């Protein structure tokens, strides 16, 4: 009896969790298919009375959402790849080195996370302006790399700490150099950590709004969050149907990508788990 009750409790908890996570998504899709009047309904219904595709048409035709989507994909992907490439060696050094310099640097990186980004925006803007990188996607990628590296570094450092030192010692006994050992021993074991860093970075960059708003003035270079904000007016008003449609289109590819990455993540994470 208690076993059945336990299973029921687990199933019920999972059900609530799915509702909690999936509810807003269902609502978003439903809203994207409703007419403007249905969206304004006093007692909104979960499903639209009549499916309308006008919101999708408006989002596609009038907002340049596809172009912004491509911009977001490029900027997020490049930022993520660059960060993943840049953080491996420092993460290894911070995890393994016990020197005062390393400790000091690692503390400084941690402290740098305390400053609110809004305080840094004007100095950063002026610096980028001197480098002629304002209104440039390359400049924005540079900013994203800079602001995301500290967290990624700390995150990956914790994965390095979990790798047994004995593996490195064995590689060294076999005559491996540090670079060779990182490439052949550490990197494969860090793959789950890299996937986590990639997911965090990609999501951060994909959703980032403020830096993109300030650094990109050219509409052709705008990212998705900038385009989505243009569906909103003042005083709580907005073109909510078109906004919902644009958001649905924006998240579908991201969901697919995360589905693939998540699978890879689980595969790698569990690899070797049952070996003696």
């Amino acid at each position, binding site marked *: 009896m208690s076993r059945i009750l336990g299973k029921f409790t687990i199933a019920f908890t999972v059900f609530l969790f799915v509702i909690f996570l999936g509810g807003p998504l269902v609502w978003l899709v439903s809203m994207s298919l409703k007419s*403007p*009047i249905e969206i304004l*309904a006093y007692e909104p219904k979960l499903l639209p009375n009549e499916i309308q595709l006008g919101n999708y048409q408006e989002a596609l035709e009038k907002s340049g959402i596809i172009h912004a989507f491509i911009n977001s994909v490029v900027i997020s992907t*490049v930022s993520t790849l660059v960060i993943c490439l840049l953080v491996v060696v420092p993460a290894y050094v911070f995890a393994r080195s016990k020197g005062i310099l390393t400790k000091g640097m690692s503390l400084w990186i941690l402290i740098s996370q305390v400053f609110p980004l809004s305080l840094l925006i004007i100095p950063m803007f002026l610096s980028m302006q001197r480098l002629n990188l304002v209104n440039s996607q390359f400049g924005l*990628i540079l900013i994203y790399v800079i602001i995301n590296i500290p967290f990624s570094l700390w995150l990956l450092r914790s994965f390095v700490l979990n790798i047994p030192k004995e593996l490195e010692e064995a590689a060294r006994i076999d005559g491996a150099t540090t670079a060779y050992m990182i490439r052949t021993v550490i990197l494969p074991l860090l793959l789950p950590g890299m996937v986590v860093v990639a997911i965090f970075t990609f999501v951060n960059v994909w959703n980032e709004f403020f830096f993109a708003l300030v650094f990109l*003035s050219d509409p052709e270079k705008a990212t998705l969050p900038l385009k989505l904000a243009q569906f909103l007016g003042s005083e709580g008003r*907005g073109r909510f149907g078109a906004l919902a449609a644009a958001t649905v289109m924006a998240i579908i590819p991201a969901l697919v990508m995360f589905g693939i990455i998540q699978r890879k993540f689980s595969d790698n994470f569990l690899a070797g788990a049952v070996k003696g």
Partner: protein
Amino acid sequence: MSKSRKLLLAVLSVLSLIFSVIAPMQSARAADEITFVTPAWQPDVIKAMQDAVSAWNKANPKTPVKLIPGDWDNLGDQLTTQFAAKTAPDVIHYESVGIREYAKRGYIADITSLMRPLQNSIPAGEWAAASYRGKLVGVPFLDQTYVVFANVDLFKKAGVAIPTAKEGVSWDDFAALSKRMTNSSHYGLSYGLLRPASSFMVMSTNFGAKFFRGYTSGKASLRVGAAELEIPSRVYDMVYKDKSIDPGSLTVSAGGSVAPFLAGKTAMLLMGSYAAIDLDVAAKEKGFNWTVLPLLRGTSQMQAANPQTFSISQQSTKKKDAARFIQFLMKDENVTKFALGDGLVPLTTSAMKAAQVAKKSSPGWTQIFADGENFTVAPFAYVPEFDQWKGTVLQPALQNFMQNKISKAELVKRLEDGWKSLR
């Protein structure tokens, strides 16, 4: 070649490919291009802006305009950074309260002489509201009145006549009307009170509320007296004593207060004139029958002007061309389209006439346009720090008061102390 080297080579190839795609996209701004930022968001207004820019570019190929979309909530942050870095757009579409703050910091050009030909066609109160220390810093072209929309069918059903007197509806009569229209099936009024600061400040001019004194000297002081408390007190009484305002109003912003009105859960809606856009859609799709009451009246019907404006950045090197472009935007055909698309009052005499003709069959729109003569410049328009005080002090204090968390005395204290802390 080892597997890891192949992987590294592949990643580098992908990166260089992507950078080679991005690099040509970093085109430098053309030297003779006029940049124009607009937070327009209604589809018809966006189209009207795009059409105007296209028409300008066709007629002026040597001084093309580049349109940069912005959004109302973030335009201030965007401009602050751009002004600091001297990369601000040449022409800025914003609102007078915000633009005056930038004018105080020297970021906005004095365009008084460049725009002199337009002065006679724009109400003096609006012109003054868009000026800083006697200098025009933005051309006012649209403004909004806070009006009372009525559900005609609910009034008919209740056998209550909708007021039509030209001298307006007094606040006492309005409260009584709202109470009368409250019954078991609906409330008298829907009024988004989640962020009440803007509408309260604009309508406080009904009772001659000044809030600020000594503002012309640049050292404004704030005093909250009886006149300043009229609107908050009256609305508070309608919520808690008369119980004629839908209590859900306290938890929704202006946009959220339309739904109960359209559903027949309230007989009236107090909101900016822009709600007419949604009501028109409802009228077309489900036969919703709406109109607008004459403006509310305290000691007068006057409402504070906070017009949308076109300004020129002080940093612009193309001020004369930018001014010519603003004059082009101010053509009747353009201003009329902006007004009808946004549900706002056009501020030039001839655009107003054109808008009245376009909407002559709608009593609601006719009333909205007729209200356009009731704008006056409020003292707060002269206080550059007003916007900051409104956001950080007034808004939260009014929210607490309307949610019955603080007393009237505490409200006064918070407003006055909050102002002192900003000075």
